[in-house]
């Protein structure tokens, strides 16, 4: 057993680290570090810098711009980006639509969409959840009716992250409402956000920022060539995506950076006895428990990567534990930051409180943590 990176991996890490130091724009770094809202331009600027370097989609197939890195190298890259306070990459195109097209798309679809995703020409969003279909995603009702060479889409999506920035949306829709199994009638459609009949309405979250939207479809005409995989096979595509999503949900790099910031903050904020709050034994114990959880998550993540390396297989259902622990840790980080802040410093407190509010979403999205527990209970335990 050896928990250390190999010499080659360390060289790789140093290469990533020094490139990030030289190429991550200072203003973007500062925005990330102060939790300022990132505009579409901010997000796409960073996307294009990475695209130019050839590092924007490491896990893609080589012919479409993948880097051929090992799982461990990809993990190092993600950790280093997080640790350097790089803006998040917009995963809907890069980690979701892109891999789906490579796995299930036609050659024409690949050629049409993949280069534009890679280069950051199109901004994508994800049309999964509906008002009546959250954790029970397969019960979705948005209807796509075949009329000649078009589908006509009617219905509503909700929680659509950054739909107001998006050029395209990939949607789960119901093309056949008559199937016995609700999973069987679902199809995966790519829809141009400029199509007539689409309305995007903001949903303000409790941090007071517009992150998510409702998207309404009213007789929206979508060419049949925008169907991915076969009609009625959308659930297969959706499941493939969810597996992809959970693996990167641990976000250890970002959490390590936030932990360092939390320690710095706690050392600078007053406790009740005039010493810094980090000296307070109650606060300190919470901080230490959190740090230990993060160490445990990090090593568990490496164990999954090691297994992927050895077996050449994607991780099984157990990877849900990374999502559960990773999001719990992200939330506790924001909670302790808010609690560390001097309550007399309203401005600081407000920024941290809003961040705490916002991060409550992490245990709800991407399959709520309760759904993740269901997955382990069913797939790992056979319950």
């Amino acid at each position: 057993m050896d928990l250390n990176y190999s010499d080659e991996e360390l060289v790789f890490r140093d290469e990533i680290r020094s490139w990030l130091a030289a190429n991550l724009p200072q203003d973007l770094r500062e925005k990330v570090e102060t939790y300022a809202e990132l505009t579409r331009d901010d997000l796409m600027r960073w996307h294009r810098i990475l695209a130019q370097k050839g590092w924007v989609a490491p896990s893609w197939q080589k012919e479409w711009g993948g880097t051929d890195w090992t799982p461990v190298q990809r993990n190092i890259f993600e950790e280093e980006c997080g640790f350097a306070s790089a803006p998040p990459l917009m995963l809907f195109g890069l980690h979701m639509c892109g891999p789906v097209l490579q796995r299930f798309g036609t050659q024409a679809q690949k050629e049409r969409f993949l280069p534009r995703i890679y280069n950051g020409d199109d901004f994508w969003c994800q049309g999964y959840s509906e008002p009546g279909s959250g954790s029970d995603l397969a019960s979705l009702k948005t209807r796509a009716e075949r009329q000649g060479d078009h589908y006509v889409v009617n219905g509503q999506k909700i929680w659509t992250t950054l739909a107001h920035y998006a050029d395209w949306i990939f949607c789960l829709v119901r093309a056949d409402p008559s199937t016995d199994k609700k999973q069987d009638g679902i199809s995966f459609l790519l829809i141009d956000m400029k199509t007539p009949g689409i309305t995007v309405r903001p949903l303000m979250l409790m941090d007071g920022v517009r992150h998510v939207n409702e998207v309404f479809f009213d007789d929206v005409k979508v060419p049949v060539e925008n169907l991915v995989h076969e009609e009625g096979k959308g659930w297969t595509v959706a499941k493939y995506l969810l597996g992809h999503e959970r693996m990167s949900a641990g976000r250890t790099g970002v959490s390590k950076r936030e932990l360092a910031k939390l320690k710095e903050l706690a050392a600078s904020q007053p406790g009740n006895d005039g010493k810094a709050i980090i000296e307070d034994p109650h606060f300190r114990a919470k901080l230490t428990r959190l740090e230990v959880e993060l160490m445990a998550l990090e090593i568990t993540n490496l164990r999954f990567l090691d297994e992927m390396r050895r077996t050449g297989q994607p991780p099984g259902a157990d990877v849900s534990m990374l999502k559960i622990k990773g999001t719990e840790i992200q939330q506790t980080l924001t909670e302790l930051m808010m609690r560390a802040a001097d309550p007399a410093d309203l401005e600081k407190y407000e920024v941290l409180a809003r961040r705490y509010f916002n991060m409550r979403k992490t245990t709800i999205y991407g399959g709520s943590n309760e759904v993740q527990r269901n997955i382990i209970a069913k797939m790992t335990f056979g319950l």
Partner: protein
Amino acid sequence: MNFESNEEQRLLTDSVRRFIDKDYDFEKRRKIIASPEGWDSNAWAALAEMGVTALALPAEYDGFDGGAVDLMGIMEAFGAGLVVEPFLPTVLAGRLVMAAGSEAQRRAILPRVASGELRLAFAHLERGARFDLSRVGAEAKRTGDAWTISGEKRAVVGAPVAGKLVVSARTPSGLGLFLIDTQDAELKRHATVDGMRVADVLLFNAKAELLGDGAATLAKIEEVNDFGTALVCAEAVGAMKYACDTTLDYLKTRKQFGVTIGSFQALQHRMVDMYIASELSRSMTCLACSKVDATGDAKERAHAVSAAKIKISDSARLISQEAVQLHGGMGMTEELKVSHTFRRLTVIAEQFGDEDYHLTRFGAL
């Protein structure tokens, strides 16, 4: 990076597991802990035969140059099987002889430990010291070249069956480690709540031999204590794995309201949380064992070991409590092994420092 065991580790762990499956099942263990001696010399001989007692000692003293990582799988098997033989105390005291003893002392003691002929125990804990390793009241007196020790050591694991004891005591120049023959001490024997045998060791001018020159004793005790902590974490991982597995079996077989209780989501989610706690504990044990083996830096070692013990103590409590709860009334009975696993995990949560002690230690690093 690589989390796999090597060929040698796998082979040895497999033979220990096979031995436990075949010759150390739950019934056998019940007989052992109910016997007056509270341990089984045949089981000890079998482990020695496999090389377990020699593993963590240097080759020049008939050992196999192994470390904590080499012992991980074995400790896990001991945890799953609730093995009570005094392996851990013997290893720890043996490593203290290695760390503090002169060449002649090592040569006299360690090959006998490696062969399994000599068992040792480390007599350190005193009343009121709790987990603070530096608090030692026992005193060593020197007359010419000869030393004697007076003091009272408490709850010394393995002392009832140890031939020799490594004893910590104050000398005029600081803390020292001494070797005494167990027969020169007065022992008050006890069986602990987890079925282990311990003794209070009462020393009245007991004849003692100073190990080495007595320098840097506390640092040596800390290092060996961290080694022991990492090993007991591995033992806990084995016990937790057993508790999870047997609880899952129970969820799949026990029926109430006409269905297996594993069909209830309230129980499924608790089972998942137990499982996650046990996997994260395994990760932290990997970290602790590799750091005690690989690093020469005391701070880095303490950082990893305390972090691991915090996680293991928390998880041991969560998993043992939930395992009993999900077994319902049956989990409370002596008849089921899970109640014995509960007891061992309760003791492990405290052994080598509970989570409060390690939270403070980690926070101060």
